Each structure stands twice: as C-alpha cells, then as structure tokens.
C-alpha cells in the first residue's frame, strides 16, 4: 500500500486539519468528536442541513459544508459511520429554532448511529428530522438486503436541501423536498480497481487486468457482477439502461446528469463517459438540463465511475442554480 499518510489511525484527523487550513473562510473543524461546521454556524432562523458518514468519500461530506449546502458534516473513520455523539455535536453546533435535517445514506451503520443521535438531540428539545437516501439501483430491494445504498444522489440531495434551507424554507418544507428528491434520483456505479483502506493495507478486492465490477458501492465492497472490460460505449450504455429503466425516466423528462469519478478515474475518461451518457439520453428523448461532472463522491483511490440521474422540475432547477459556496461546489458567489 502506498499512500501520502503518516499513520492509518490519524488519517482522518490530519486530513481534516488540512481541510480547515485550506478553507477557513468557509468552514471550521472542531475536534473530539471531529465535526466540520459552517464558519458562520449557527445561522439564525435557518434549517441546518447536516450529513455525514464514513470518511474516504471526499469531497463528500466535509467539502460540501458552507453557504447554500451543509451546515455541518460528520466524518467517521474511513468507511465507518460516525458515532451518535459526533452527530449530536454537529446538531448542537448548528441547530437553532428552525431545526435540523439529517441526511443519512442508507447503510445499517449510518442509519443506526444517526437514529440514536436524532433521539439524543430530540431529548434536548431540538427539532431534528432524518431522511434516508437510497438511490443505488444496483441493489435488490430490502427483502433480500439492507436496502438500496445511498450513493451519488446524496450530493444532489445535499445541494438542493441546502439551497432550500438557505432561502429560508421551514423544516417541514425542507424535509418534504428531501423526500421528493429521494423519490426521483437514481444511480449506478462501476469499478475498474479496488480501493485500499489505510488500516487494511491491501486492496478491498482483487480484479484481474481484464475485469471490472459492475454495480459497486462506495466502500470497496465488490459489485453485483464481475464482467470483462468492455468499451466505454457499452459500459455507459449498460449503466444508463440500469438507471433509466428503474425509475423509470422517459421521453421528455428533464434531468440533471451527474457523472462522478470514484476517485482514481481521471477527468479525461470521465468526460468521455459523460459525453456518451449525454448522447444515449438524447437518443431516448431525455433532456439533460443540468450536469455535474467530477470526483464528488469517491471511494478513496478506486478507479471507476457512477452515473446519477435526477428528474428536474422548475423548483429543483432553481434550487440547483442557487448560489453555493463550499470547498467542492461553488457558484453564484
């Protein structure tokens, strides 16, 4: 294993120190428990949108803290959900009378820890709601599994609810919006290589030089299917097919297309894949009105990509376009 680190045990804390140093105008990092907080939190009269989860998916979530997006992010150890007291600390640091919305990615650990945190916060008289995002079409429904995973859709959900909170929407409205977004966003991912968890020291799975994993998550778990390397045209077509038929998305639908790198896949490949996805969607009469391309929800150094489609309407488009000022997403400011 080769990484630019000192010690697997201190990776997250040291990385947060760099994040804080780099973006002191936007956020601050509090220690013990470690949380990332908007520099001007708590913002009076506004709902605090909070998310978190295991580290290793940067810029998610800490890179999305700032005006117009997250009030706080709660980073766990690498690939490990944060503990309830960390989540509670983030709630306390950012939440006033307007309350807080917790965005929870659907993993057993995240759900359990955030659930407990929400109870703790409620016991302190804070109005805290939770939504669970589960946009990964690779996973079978929850009769057979822990349910669909929260993946790329999380980034969009954080931006949209953050924008709603920023414009002053009440908690009920922000929660309703979140549920609407979760209802109409779908994702799928593929991996060309495995990530290496620092403390594990070895790649999370072995892939031959002519194999890829289709339907992977973001924690180095193998995908639903191992297949041969295929040309990008075919790969992206399979991904688009999996998403589009799931919701389903159909002719005339307006969408946001999010083409995401898993970390190790460079932009030259990512834009290539994005171009194919745009073409395939156009062929189906699906209208791409907004797009996001880049490494936004990653899995350490894993090579691979995911596609996320969100059905847009005027409200969502307006919220997407609203100003945002975070380390990883910034416009309008």
């Amino acid at each position, binding site marked *: 294993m080769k990484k630019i680190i000192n010690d697997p045990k201190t990776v997250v804390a040291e990385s947060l120190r760099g994040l804080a140093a780099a973006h002191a105008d936007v956020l601050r990092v509090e220690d013990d428990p470690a949380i990332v907080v908007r520099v001007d939190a708590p913002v009076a009269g506004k709902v605090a949108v909070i998310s978190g989860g295991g580290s290793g998916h940067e810029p998610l979530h800490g890179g999305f803290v700032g005006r117009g997006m997250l009030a706080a992010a709660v980073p766990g150890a690498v*690939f*490990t*959900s944060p503990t309830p007291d960390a989540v509670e600390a983030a709630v306390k640091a950012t939440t006033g009378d307007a309350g807080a919305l917790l965005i929870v990615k659907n993993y057993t*650990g995240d759900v*359990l*820890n955030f659930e407990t945190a929400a109870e703790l916060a409620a016991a302190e008289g804070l109005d805290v709601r939770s939504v669970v995002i589960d946009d990964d079409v690779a996973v079978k429904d929850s009769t*057979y599994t822990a349910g669909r995973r929260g993946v790329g859709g999380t980034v969009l959900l954080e931006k949209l609810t953050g924008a709603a909170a920023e414009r002053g929407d009440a908690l009920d409205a922000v929660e309703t919006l979140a549920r609407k977004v979760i209802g109409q966003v779908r994702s799928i991912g593929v991996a060309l290589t495995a990530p290496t968890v620092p*403390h594990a020291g070895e790649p999370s799975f072995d892939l031959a030089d002519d194999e890829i994993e289709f339907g992977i998550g973001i*924690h180095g778990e*193998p995908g639903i299917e191992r297949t041969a390397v295929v040309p990008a045209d075919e790969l992206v077509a399979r991904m688009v097919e999996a998403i589009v038929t799931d919701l389903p998305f159909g002719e005339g639908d307006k969408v946001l297309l999010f083409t995401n790198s898993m970390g190790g896949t460079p932009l030259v490949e990512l834009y290539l894949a994005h171009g194919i996805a745009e073409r395939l969607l156009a062929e189906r009469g699906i209208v791409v009105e907004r797009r996001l391309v880049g490494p936004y929800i990653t899995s350490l150094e894993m090579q691979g990509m995911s596609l996320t489609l969100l059905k847009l309407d005027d409200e969502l488009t307006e919220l997407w376009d609203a100003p945002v000022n975070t380390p990883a997403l910034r416009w309008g400011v």
Partner: protein
Amino acid sequence: MACTAETLAAALRAAAAVIAEHRAELVDLDRAIGDADHGENLDRGFTAIVSALDTATPGTPAAVAKLAATTLISKVGGAAGPLYGTAFLRASVKLGDAAEVDGALLIEALRAALEGVQARGKAVGGDATMVDALIPAVSAAEEAAGSDVAAILAAAADAADKGAESTVDLVPRKGRASYLGERAKGHMDPGARSTALLLRAFAEAAR
C-alpha cells in the same frame, strides 16, 4: 464462582486483548464481503474500554457493562458499534444492582443482549450476521442452566463458534454483505466471528 464488577472488568480487558490479536483477521473477513473495517472498529472500541477502565472503577457488574456499552457506542461507529453497544446496554439493565452475577442472571443478561441486537438490527437467524452466533450461544447457555458462570460461558462460546461457522454457507440478508447476494457465500460473517471471539474470551476469563 460468580462474576463481580472486578472479574467482569478483567474479562473485558481479556476480550480487548483477543480483539487486538484478531484485528487483522476480522479486517480480512470484512474485506471479503464488506468494507474492511470490522477489526479496526472493534479494536478501537475495546482499546477505549480498557482506557475507560483504567480511570474509572465502576462498582457493580451492571456499571461495568454500561461503561462498555457507552464506550462502544461513542467510539466504534459503523453497524457494530450500535449493535454491540446495545447488547451491553441491555445486559447492563438486566444485571440491575446485583453485586455478583450468577449463572441464572448471566443467562438472562445474554438473552437480553441478543434481544437488543435483534431489536436494533432487525436481523433474524439465517441472515448471516452476528445474530447467527448469538442465537445458538444463548440457547446453549440456557441449556446449561444450573451450571456455573464459567461452564455457561464455555457452552455459549462453543455454540457461537459453530454459529459463526454456519454463516459461511448463508446468503446474507442484513448489513453490508447483503449487497453481494450469492457472491457472499463461502465467507464467514465478521460480526459472527467477533461475537464468537468475545464469548470465548469471556469464557476463558471466567475459568
């Protein structure tokens, strides 16, 4: 021999040593069908328990169990943190203010721990989780009713070993391994393995 606050604390220290020793094994099991953190998570948690026991000396077995519970909940994270945390918390409640835990109370505490894990995680037997080690362990403990603490824990540990073994052939339906479906077959569930390790450590400490 019955179990006091001191012997329970010693058992937890012994368990911490066992977890540290098997850290890499548990990481590897989780790497195969999960996200490669189970050993690291538990090691962090049990190391923190040892630290907590170094500074506090809870007076009852229940208080020791509660210290373990809150430490696990606040240091482990992931799925295992809340689940093991709940197990110790429910056991602690069951232990009440008893100064010594005898066989009968131990069995009740084990049953409460199992019920806590199932209440939180919603897993049933056969889902290929730590529950598949805990269910047979509790049953074996109940069958050993009347024996002393050491014998009950030994019976539970033996059964947990077999239960953990049984997960190898299962298709997981809960937790991260469930995403893999059939592909997870042939791998032991890391949480079931850690449950077996913990019970074995307690049994050894009680001898």
